[in-house]
């Protein structure tokens, strides 16, 4: 059934100009997987007839069942183009054979980490947008991510069939809808434009927008029609294409093109006249089974049907006719081959984004030139469970050099620091594998520009890593991926039978590997925690854990738990002081909230411990109004040395101060990880060391005296600065018809959410609602919403920001106080907060 062999594939892998690595990205349910099917069908992996129904890339049972994609799946496809169709292609190429490494990605926001992983190893993206629903929140998110990775996009306006069959809109109205979709997409792309990538906006008249009906397996670009009409009108194709879009009108009565509608009934827009109407006509003819009218029309279009296909009726006939006339694969393929970059083109500008090291070393050059003879640079973007239980393929992209079976590689993990031995392994690759449809084929080696799966490295890679040759000790790693979602929802898991613990541990290890986003950790109380992006994500993770990774051993899961942050509202009401255990040393401190936006800047890495102090103090003084000298006196960030809290030295002329700096820092790292309220992480607090009194003898001001004291004084200053809890908040986007709005508002109100944007989608009865919803209220939210709107509203939640809870946790009976008590109880702490007097000492 498969029309090509592994040998053929391997041969084209060397032709770096004939490779396209691309991912299919879109909002959930806009038809990615369905559209992918038609491409796969064209490559001969599945039969044309079932294309659109199989969802080839949804390989998991639960994916098929829920009808959503959960994991991104890669497929290598081989196409041979005709000379005819490649005539206009101006770029470099070797022959007519093309290799498309295609990755279908999930659209649900909970799995957008999969999209991130897919984007990293591709150069181009096919953005799928539902022509009715238009550009949605996730479309924007994935587009932003794609452009951030310097991925060139092309667009397809999908679900065209809905226009014809469901909505039955007329040509002009449809045009306006499409135009709006494209415009919206272009607005987003323009926002995230990058000078190196050039103009990334898409234009139908340039062939970077396709119109498709994934379900029926047909698609076209204006190129298709331009070709058809060019000879008829005696103009060249590119001229024709321009006329088929935008303000170009044609009146068949006068046979004249104008740039404005003349108002006459026969004068129609080029697109409507020459693209939309003919398709509409064909579809209607098919649906009405007017075969006597159909055959001559098809003959005129040069479409020949097989004899057995002529017996089909209605929808089946329509599908078949359209597939033959405007096959989705050729339109999309042409668009990809013509307009998406080959690895050798893309890596030229992507190298800056990819490589962490200096831009002029041999590794950067090898990536830039996509040099198969250069040193190996390979980025593993995700781990894919193998059929062999418990093992994983390391799936990634070769950016330079070649990776071969049996080769010894240097694995640089995410915590690797050049020059150190941390997170570094040297291991040999057991097998190199490529994906052909559902099965894998071993190949001897894989050169740069391709995606590859490696066997035998899974025991050293958790989620991602950079691989290079064994000897290349001075190579820097490839930059880590940045995810748009964060694991804010957590559950604690336990095994039902205590002796299953080793199974659980092993299962969690595998789970952590199988998903780029999920984090498996352990709480202070000894509970195993699984953290994911959302409720659905966790549900899938838990199912995988139990069924696939633990062999069905039973687990008990807790209710979802949300982690909070502790912050302060104001500057401490007074300078607090704590004495060391021996009473000979005193630390004076004050806490104050960090300037607005500073915590986010630290999160984003714009300000961090690794910065050049000059740069840091520049940002701090210019953007956040810090004193220039003060900016140089930051002692540290925390927790984990990088967190969004800091200690600043405000002392003047204190003796031995340097000596206790390390101890204070150690105490701060400890305290900022476990705040005074509920031992949650602190966020956005600046601790100012105001004064220090130290014993003259070094022995009496050692770490043992200062570290616990620093911790106490930090707690005391936190408590005196009006401590508050921060809760995580989702940005929710809901699309629903007008009649569902009442229900949506009701549910949102009940769940402490608030709507901040409500826009009607022009040309549709749909409304787009954006709201903020506390994560803690989001459990069961989609269910409640569906019930309240009789299934018409489907929310997408993505973590947006931390929101301060206004109630005072120190005030008994307040909501925050109750929360603090609950958290403390769950963590097995004393339910009462430690009083200030335990932390603060009086003179």
């Amino acid at each position, binding site marked *: 059934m498969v029309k090509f062999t592994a040998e053929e594939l391997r041969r084209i892998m060397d032709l770096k100009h004939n490779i396209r690595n691309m991912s299919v990205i879109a909002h959930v349910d806009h038809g990615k997987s369905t559209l992918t099917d038609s491409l796969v069908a064209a490559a001969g992996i599945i039969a044309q007839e079932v294309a659109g129904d199989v969802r080839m890339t949804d390989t998991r049972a639960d994916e098929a069942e829920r009808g959503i994609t959960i994991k991104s799946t890669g497929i290598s496809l081989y196409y041979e183009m005709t000379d005819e169709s490649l005539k206009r292609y101006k770029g470099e190429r070797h022959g007519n054979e093309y290799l498309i490494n295609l990755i279908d990605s999930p659209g649900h926001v909970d799995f957008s980490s999969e999209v991130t992983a897919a984007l990293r190893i591709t150069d181009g993206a096919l953005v799928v947008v539902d022509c009715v629903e238009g550009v949605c929140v996730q479309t924007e998110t994935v587009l932003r991510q794609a452009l951030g990775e310097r991925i060139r996009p092309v667009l397809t306006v999908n679900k065209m069939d809905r226009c014809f069959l469901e909505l039955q809109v007329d040509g002009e109205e449809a045009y306006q809808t499409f135009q709006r979709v494209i415009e919206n997409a272009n607005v987003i792309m323009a926002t995230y434009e990058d000078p190196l990538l050039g103009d990334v906006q898409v234009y139908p008249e340039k062939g970077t927008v396709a119109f498709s009906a994934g379900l029926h397996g047909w698609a076209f670009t204006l190129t298709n029609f331009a070709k058809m009409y060019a000879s008829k009108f005696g103009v060249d194709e590119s001229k024709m294409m321009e006329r088929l879009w935008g303000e170009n009108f044609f009146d068949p009565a006068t046979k004249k093109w104008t740039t404005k509608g003349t108002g006459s009934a026969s004068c129609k827009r080029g697109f409507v006249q020459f693209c939309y109407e003919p398709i509409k006509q064909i579809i209607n003819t098919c649906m009405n089974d007017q075969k006597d009218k159909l055959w001559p029309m098809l003959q005129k279009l040069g479409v020949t049907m097989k004899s057995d296909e002529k017996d089909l009726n209605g929808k089946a006939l329509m599908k078949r006719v359209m597939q033959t006339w405007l096959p989705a694969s050729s339109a999309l393929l042409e668009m990809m081959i013509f307009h998406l970059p080959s690895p050798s083109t893309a890596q030229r500008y992507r190298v800056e984004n990819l490589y962490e090291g200096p831009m002029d070393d041999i590794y950067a050059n090898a990536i830039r030139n996509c040099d198969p003879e250069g040193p190996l640079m390979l980025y593993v973007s995700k781990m894919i469970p193998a059929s062999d239980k418990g093992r994983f393929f390391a799936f990634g992209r070769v950016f330079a050099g070649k990776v071969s079976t049996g080769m010894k590689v240097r694995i640089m993990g995410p915590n690797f620091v050049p020059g150190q031995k941390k997170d570094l392994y040297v291991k040999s690759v057991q097998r190199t594998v490529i994906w052909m449809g559902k099965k894998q084929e071993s190949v001897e080696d894989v050169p740069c520009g391709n995606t590859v799966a490696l066997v035998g490295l*899974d025991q050293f890679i958790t989620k991602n890593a950079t691989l290079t040759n064994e000897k290349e000790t001075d190579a820097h790693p490839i930059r880590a991926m940045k995810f748009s979602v964060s694991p804010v929802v957590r559950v604690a898991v336990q095994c039902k039978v205590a002796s299953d613990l080793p199974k659980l541990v092993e299962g969690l290890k595998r789970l952590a590997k199988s998903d780029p986003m999920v984090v498996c950790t352990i709480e202070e109380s000894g509970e195993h925690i699984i953290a994911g992006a959302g409720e659905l994500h966790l549900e899938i993770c838990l199912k995988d854990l139990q069924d696939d990774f633990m062999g069905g051993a039973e687990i008990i899961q807790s209710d979802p738990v949300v982690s909070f942050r502790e912050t302060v509202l104001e500057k401490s009401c007074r300078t607090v002081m704590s004495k060391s255990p021996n009473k000979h040393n005193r630390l004076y401190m004050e806490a104050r909230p960090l300037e607005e936006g500073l915590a986010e800047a630290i999160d984003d890495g714009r300000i961090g411990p690794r910065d050049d102090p000059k740069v840091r103090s520049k940002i701090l003084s210019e953007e956040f109004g810090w004193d220039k000298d003060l900016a140089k006196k930051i002692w540290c960030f925390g927790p984990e040395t990088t967190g969004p809290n800091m200690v600043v030295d405000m002392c003047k002329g204190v003796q031995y101060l340097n000596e206790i700096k*390390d101890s204070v820092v150690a105490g701060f790292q400890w305290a900022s990880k476990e705040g005074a309220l509920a031992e949650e992480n602190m966020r956005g607090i600046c601790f100012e060391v105001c004064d220090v009194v130290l014993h003259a003898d070094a022995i009496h001001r050692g770490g043992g005296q200062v570290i616990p004291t620093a911790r106490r004084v930090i707690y005391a200053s936190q408590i005196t600065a009006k401590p508050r809890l921060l809760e995580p908040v989702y940005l929710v986007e809901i699309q629903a018809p007008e009649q569902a709005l009442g229900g949506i508002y009701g549910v949102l109100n009940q769940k402490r959410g608030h709507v901040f944007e409500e826009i009607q989608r022009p040309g549709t009865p749909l409304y787009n609602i954006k709201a903020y919803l506390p994560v803690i209220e989001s459990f069961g939210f989609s269910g409640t919403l569906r019930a309240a709107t009789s299934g018409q509203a489907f929310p997408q939640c993505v973590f947006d920001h931390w929101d301060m809870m206004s109630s005072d946790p120190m005030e008994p009976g307040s909501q925050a106080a109750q929360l603090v008590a609950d958290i403390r109880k769950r963590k097995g702490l004393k339910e009462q907060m430690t009083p200030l007097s335990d932390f603060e000492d009086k003179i």
Partner: protein
Amino acid sequence: MDLASNYDIAHTADFIRSRNFTRVALQFPDELLKDSTKVVSALRDELRRESDVEGKGDFRDIGFFVMADTMYGSCCVDEVGASHVDAECVVHYGHTCLSPTSTLPALFVFGKASICVEDCVTSLSGCLLNSEKPILVLFGLEYAHAMQSTKEAMVVESSSLCGSIYKNAIRYADVLCSVMDPKEYRGTSDTQLQSSHCLNANRDCAHCDQMNSGVVGTSYTIGGLMWNLPEGHKMEDYMLFWIGSDNAAFANVVLTYNRCDTVRYDPMENRLVKDVSHIKKIIMRRYYLVEKAKDANIVGILVGTLGVAGYLHMIHQMKELIMGAGKKVYTLVMGRPNPAKLANFPECGVFIYVSCAQTALLDSKEFLAPVITPFEAFLAFSRGRQWTGEYVMEFRDLIAYPSLQVSDKLEEARFSFLQGGYIEDLEPQESGKDVDENERSLNLVEATEKSVQLREKYTHSLVKGEARTGAEFFAARSYRGLDIQSEDSGPRSFVLGRSGKASGYKDEKSSQENM
């Protein structure tokens, strides 16, 4: 209860006299210290009276020394303290873990806590009726005196209740012994120490246990208690009934037999406590500490006892284990650890506390680094070993614990649950040859030099690499000696210092008054 019976004066005097000790150390825990003088005089009186009876009059030769404020846990015999006064034996009062001594013979006086036998028996029989499992009765040593009467009352009670159906369903533990003499078990190797020791005690106890007389099965000992289970019975098959307070000994029992259902009868409040979940939580917490320990690069061994037999062996074993795992180890002797003491070694990622079973669990949030037991260290530092729920508190049992050979070296990298990813471990140091190298003084210099160079490369950075050794840690500190201010080297003018006490200097007092 009167002093003589509570402190077992007669028995103690007998012990001293029969073995002809002349220098006797009396070890009191803090809470009993107030009685120490009375006990000494009572003992003198007793001995004098006895010698008067015998007419020898040699009691004056006996010197009594009261020891208090022991270095480590007060449950262990402080042999070092005793040898300061050249004592020939130690009489230990109060709560004890009954850990075997290494040099001196010791007599343990448990004291006699008051207990209402009837109420206890009612609770016990109530449990017996509701429980599907047979019951094993364990008790705090201070209640050992009441056990015989409890047993007898129970026999009456159970026969009156339901005949002999439950006759087999209840078992009692016994006190191992109250006298310990290293001479008696000297010669046997450390590993056999425990068993030979048991035999010695068995003789006294076998006949008093009417229920399992004649049945030979597995014998168990914990915290000074011992019992036999018939062949084929497992501990999980029993329900544990603890008579005593919620102390370290009880925690020890619950942790060790964490798969058994456990109830506790509190003789102080005369009530039955069925909820022991707080101790089960400890296990979870310990599990976390083990995971945390796995991430440590530098390990400190805290010597928590100088008395319990086999402690040196254990320390050596720990050292080998840790070096085998490629980590750096330092041995620290600091008496009873507290947060301030441990925070003086911020370079240590984890501490292993080698001590007797009942002081072993040190878990306070105040500690900067976790303090774990040798058993937990075994779990943490031998790769491929998983915690299956069993728990060993006594490090003596660990000596015989099957050691797992690190045979599969190219196994997968270690997964750290604290960081949620793979963490590389250092190459295991080859023990033996490498040890000498590590001890070389030059090594310190080299390591220091290396880390100094490393640091200079990232001189602007606020982040430091993780230290592998103490020297590296120190080299990475931001403070490395006093700043020499070269510009003003001239003599400074005379400045008046502070005066007063550390809790409040004189100048501060005045400022407070001003407020």
